[in-house]
């Protein structure tokens, strides 16, 4: 029962074979038994979950249930949850109980899902390994000495470990797709603006996007049906009709035009990862797709562009943590400036400080045009590369990450860590959707295939991933925890 996908659980709940309260209790027990070695949860909401599960069972008994009523999930600890701790994995917010729910949380609650708790993450979503958490690193369930990826590493690890069938993550430069790849699950970053950011603790506002993480594309489609759509509380959320994401999952792939960006198969790509990804692409050819090489000529500029724009936005967004209205305040400040300086010095971890300092520097007088405005111009070129490519092909494919999950503590140089996001970052700069699908293993660790589509092309991505999963079994593999 605990190895089921979200869709399988939903079908079991609908048929009456499963009760949400029994399922929820079994999962909570599994978390209690095994999460000590994985550290995927910051907060487990046992009592609230059991109460919600009983309410879901009662709703089903009344005939008042939707597709996901009673289905268990988890939420990255970046989503504000009313009356539940929301820490963003930071000492700055380690005592913060949100007075309201994020829109995504509101919609998941309205759909009857049962949240088991809040998952670990890199502090303020800044990181690619989930080692930058105030609550300690998350361990990859496939190999506990390895990272799960970041920053939604807690969500990815919790799913891979069988603690929940699905969880919500956020993706600013690959934070859903890279941990999905490292943990052998499926993760979708939707088009920018497709899902409301209201109530999601902001890192880089023009890049952040929430999305589903689960075992399968079908699970992601079910969650997208709940969370996608306009929200007038987020002015960047797009007012555009939401399709039924499950409607076209089974559409045959015959005639699908796949583009392989030459820049995604060059220097720096691990040979084992490349082998597995190329085998997956051959499976697509066997399913009737055609493959052509394409070029995204500005790819090499994506990381420098991101590491100007994202820290600049972070320096602005994180200025709200001043020790006045919420969050950490230092002891006995002698004056207001002392309070700001010490509260922020004590509350933020090293990576967060590094990015705030970088952003503050590049936005300061004399540097703004040379860095920030220049990066915004290059961003347009990066976006145009994708628009040009999608005139020739339906989807793009390549590795989600250049390597499998690396060892905990292995990457001490921040620049080397940043380079690991080479295949995911440009997608956020362009605002297009991307999904990572498990397609095999190298050295005993999972490998993800990244599939990209044009703006609002989520249905095609989910269809492309789902048909692959109907013809392969990589998404059914589970690590052993005992």
């Amino acid at each position, binding site marked *: 029962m605990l190895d089921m996908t979200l869709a399988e659980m939903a079908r079991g709940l609908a048929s009456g074979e499963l009760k949400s309260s029994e399922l929820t209790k079994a999962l909570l027990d599994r978390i209690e038994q095994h999460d000590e070695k994985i550290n995927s949860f910051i907060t487990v909401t046992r009592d609230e979950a059991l109460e919600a599960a009983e309410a879901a069972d009662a709703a089903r008994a009344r005939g008042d249930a939707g597709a996901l009523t009673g289905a268990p999930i988890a939420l990255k600890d970046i989503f504000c949850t009313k009356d539940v701790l929301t820490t963003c994995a930071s000492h700055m917010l380690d005592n913060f109980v949100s007075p309201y729910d994020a829109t995504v949380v509101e919609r998941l609650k309205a759909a009857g899902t049962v949240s088991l708790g809040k998952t670990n993450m890199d502090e303020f979503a800044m990181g690619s390994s989930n080692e930058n958490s105030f609550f300690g690193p998350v361990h990859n369930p496939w190999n506990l000495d390895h990272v799960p990826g970041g920053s939604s590493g807690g969500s990815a690890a919790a799913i891979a470990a069988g603690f929940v069938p699905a969880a919500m993550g956020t993706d600013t430069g690959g934070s859903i797709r890279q941990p999905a790849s490292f943990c052998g699950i499926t993760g979708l970053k939707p088009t920018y603006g497709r899902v409301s950011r209201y109530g999601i603790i902001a890192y880089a506002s023009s890049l952040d996007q929430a999305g589903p993480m689960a075992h399968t594309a079908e699970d992601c489609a079910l969650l997208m049906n709940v969370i996608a759509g306009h929200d007038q509380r987020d002015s960047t959320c797009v007012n555009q009709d939401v399709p039924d994401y499950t409607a076209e999952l089974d559409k045959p792939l015959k005639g699908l035009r796949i583009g392989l960006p030459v820049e995604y198969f060059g220097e720096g790509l691990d040979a084992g990862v490349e082998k597995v990804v190329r085998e997956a692409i051959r499976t697509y050819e066997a399913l009737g797709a055609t493959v052509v090489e394409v070029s995204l000529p500005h790819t090499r500029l994506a990381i*420098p562009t991101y590491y100007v724009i994202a820290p600049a936005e972070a320096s602005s967004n994180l200025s709200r943590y001043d020790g006045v209205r919420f969050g950490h305040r230092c002891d006995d400040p002698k004056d207001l400036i002392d309070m700001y300086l010490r509260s922020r010095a004590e509350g933020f971890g090293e990576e967060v400080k590094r990015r705030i300092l970088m952003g503050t520097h590049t936005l300061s007088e004399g540097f703004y045009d040379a860095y920030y405005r220049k990066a915004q111009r290059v961003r347009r070129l990066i976006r145009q590369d994708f628009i040009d490519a999608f005139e020739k092909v339906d989807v793009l494919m390549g590795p989600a990450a250049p390597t499998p999950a690396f060892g905990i503590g292995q990457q001490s140089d921040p620049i080397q860590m940043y380079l690991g996001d080479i295949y995911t970052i440009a997608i956020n700069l362009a605002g297009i959707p991307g999904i990572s699908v498990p397609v095999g293993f190298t050295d005993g660790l999972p490998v993800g295939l990244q599939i990209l589509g044009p703006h609002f092309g989520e249905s095609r991505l989910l269809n492309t991933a789902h048909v692959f999963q109907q013809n392969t079994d990589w998404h059914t593999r589970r690590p052993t925890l005992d």
Partner: protein
Amino acid sequence: MAIELADVSRAAYLARIGVSEAEAARYVDDLSHILDMADQLASVDTNGIEPLAHPLDALQPLRRDEVTETNHRDDFQACAPAVADGLFLVPRVVE
């Protein structure tokens, strides 16, 4: 572009983050490496290219100028470090 200790100290003060001299020296190295990487952007010809702030190139939508929020002061102050009589308390600003 080279960055010096004074640049880091200035950024830290602007960002209101207290950093010791030893920490600042470490950030000089880190930020220098990041800026070296960012300097690659200078080689790209972006003449005539409009900056892109929103990935969908969308404009800020407008809404009616109506009050929609209700008063949640007590809820919001429940998580504040120090409050009294509905006010946020901070160290003395004016002697």
